[in-house]
């Protein structure tokens, strides 16, 4: 290996190592702080690592707030919203791609119009609407408005436009009903797309903070992100416990991310570049 190439590679590793360190640092800082006594956290002269790691902080944080309930709420919301988004998107995408019916164009524009209306712009009317329905602080209030996914419908339509029409024609010649053609022939083909989309939609729902903030204001209906925010306002100066609470919230998602990183990368690319 010539010296110049060696130097170039060293520079590449160094730059990437620095970037990875920047990503990792806050998470390391959180873990170290979560295992300290509060006196150690607020003493600027204390070393960055705990003298004796106090794993009991995690148990203490858990016992101080209904994390179990918050996890359950987040899981119910995340799973139900994701399942709804995938199902409605799959059905609509298939119909728009492979079936002819009067009004298809208009309905497609309507289906995608949601992409033009960011939720951030309509938080006030949304809370009025859900208040009028009596859906504030309910699971249906969290889930139902999030079921339709313009992105899902769009991506599934793109996918089905790329599948051969002959498959359906052959099945119809064999006398299969339209529903059977969809269920037996086309839906199974969409499995890889569904998997990639499922993961990023689930992560988006799991980490959604603004929507629950608008719909829910009771502790027992709060999702995990809101719960963390509540926890912080109750334990303002227990910095070690706040960091322990963050650790409790981050760890499971982190494990999911490590195991499913390839699917996540695929999903991100699918959502933005196609």
């Amino acid at each position, binding site marked *: 290996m010539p010296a110049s190439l060696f130097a170039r590679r060293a520079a590449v590793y160094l730059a990437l190592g620095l970037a990875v360190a920047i990503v990792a640092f*806050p998470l390391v800082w959180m873990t170290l702080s979560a295992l300290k006594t509060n006196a150690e956290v607020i003493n600027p002269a204390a070393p960055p690592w705990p003298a004796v790691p106090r794993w009991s902080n995690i148990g203490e944080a858990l016992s101080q707030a209904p994390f179990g309930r918050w996890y359950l709420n987040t899981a119910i919301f995340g799973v139900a919203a994701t399942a709804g988004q995938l199902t409605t998107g799959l059905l609509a995408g298939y119909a728009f791609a492979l079936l002819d*019916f009067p009004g298809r164009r208009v309905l497609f524009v309507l289906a995608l119009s949601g992409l033009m209306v960011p939720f951030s712009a309509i938080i006030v009317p*949304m809370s009025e609407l859900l208040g009028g329905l009596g859906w504030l602080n309910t699971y249906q209030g969290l889930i139902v*408005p999030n079921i339709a996914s313009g992105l899902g419908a769009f991506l599934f339509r793109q996918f089905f436009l790329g599948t051969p029409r002959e498959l359906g024609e052959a099945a119809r010649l064999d006398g299969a009903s339209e529903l059977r053609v969809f269920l037996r022939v086309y839906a199974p083909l969409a499995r890889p797309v569904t998997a990639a989309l499922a993961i990023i939609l689930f992560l988006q729902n799991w980490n959604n903070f603004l929507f629950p903030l608008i719909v829910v204001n009771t502790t027992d209906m709060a999702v995990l992100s809101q719960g963390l925010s509540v926890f912080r306002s109750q334990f303002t100066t227990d910095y070690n416990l706040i960091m322990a609470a963050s650790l409790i*919230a981050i760890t499971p998602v982190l494990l999911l991310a490590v195991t499913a990183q390839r699917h996540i990368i695929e999903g991100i690319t699918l959502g*933005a570049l196609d």
Partner: protein
Amino acid sequence: MGELISAAPLARARRAGSGRRTRALAYAFVAPTVLLTVAFSLVPLGMLLWRSLHGGGVFDLAPRFVGLDNYTAMLAEGGGHALGVTAVYTTGFVVLTMGAGLGLALLLNSRAPGVARLRAPFVVPLVVPVVATALIWANMFAPRFGVVNRVLAALGLPQADILSAPGPALLAVLTFGAWQFFGQNVILYVAALKSVPRDVLDAAAVDGAGAWRRFRHVQWPLTRRHTLLIWVVTTLTGLQTFTQIYVLTQGGPDGATSTALYYVYDQGFVQFDTGRANAMGVALFLLSLLVTLAQLWLVGRSGRAR
């Protein structure tokens, strides 16, 4: 005649979706998406536009038409400032995350062994809850014991209460926002650079083009389309920054970090001035619409990405 008969089933199969039962199935398939989109996107949008032109709050039973009064009040009462903050924040956000994304993707694209596996860490900030990381950054920016102040002290520089000073607070929120998001642009630029054929790059190298010229004349022009798409996603994300600000600064100090969306939330759900909140909501909608229309136009102009 015989031909017609034998061709009939095939023609029927070809004309998929023309039968009455097929039509019923198609409508049933698109109904959930269409109806829910109308109910929970278009109806609230209509309410937003209508209410932004009318006076009275939520509890006012007789709203009256007030023209653009809500808009002028919004712009005068901190809304104009919030739009300015949003412009500064979004610009910084785009520059930082796209610059870091492209730079790191070029490094990850190099042929040094083992480099490809280094993509994984950049996914992490994208998937962890923003509230949890915001609490970490609040801790890191804390006066005296936060890591930033520890570093300042170690360097013999004066201590600072970063989140209580307007300029530093905005910079702090921006740094955190960029940290949380830049991994997405790393991943997207890695995908974009993968679409550049290796043999074209190799040919350029054989012709004696250095790394900079290969980038300038091969990689950059061939990924221009991806850059446009990445810009759209990044801009929309920057425009709608909320959670970082909600947790770290509550829009303070003195409105220095109050972005458009935080303003909508603050006016609508804290001050209960829905007129101003809705006027800003409309502004946010129009800004996002502009960006989205730009996207549709760009995508329409240049076909599919891959």
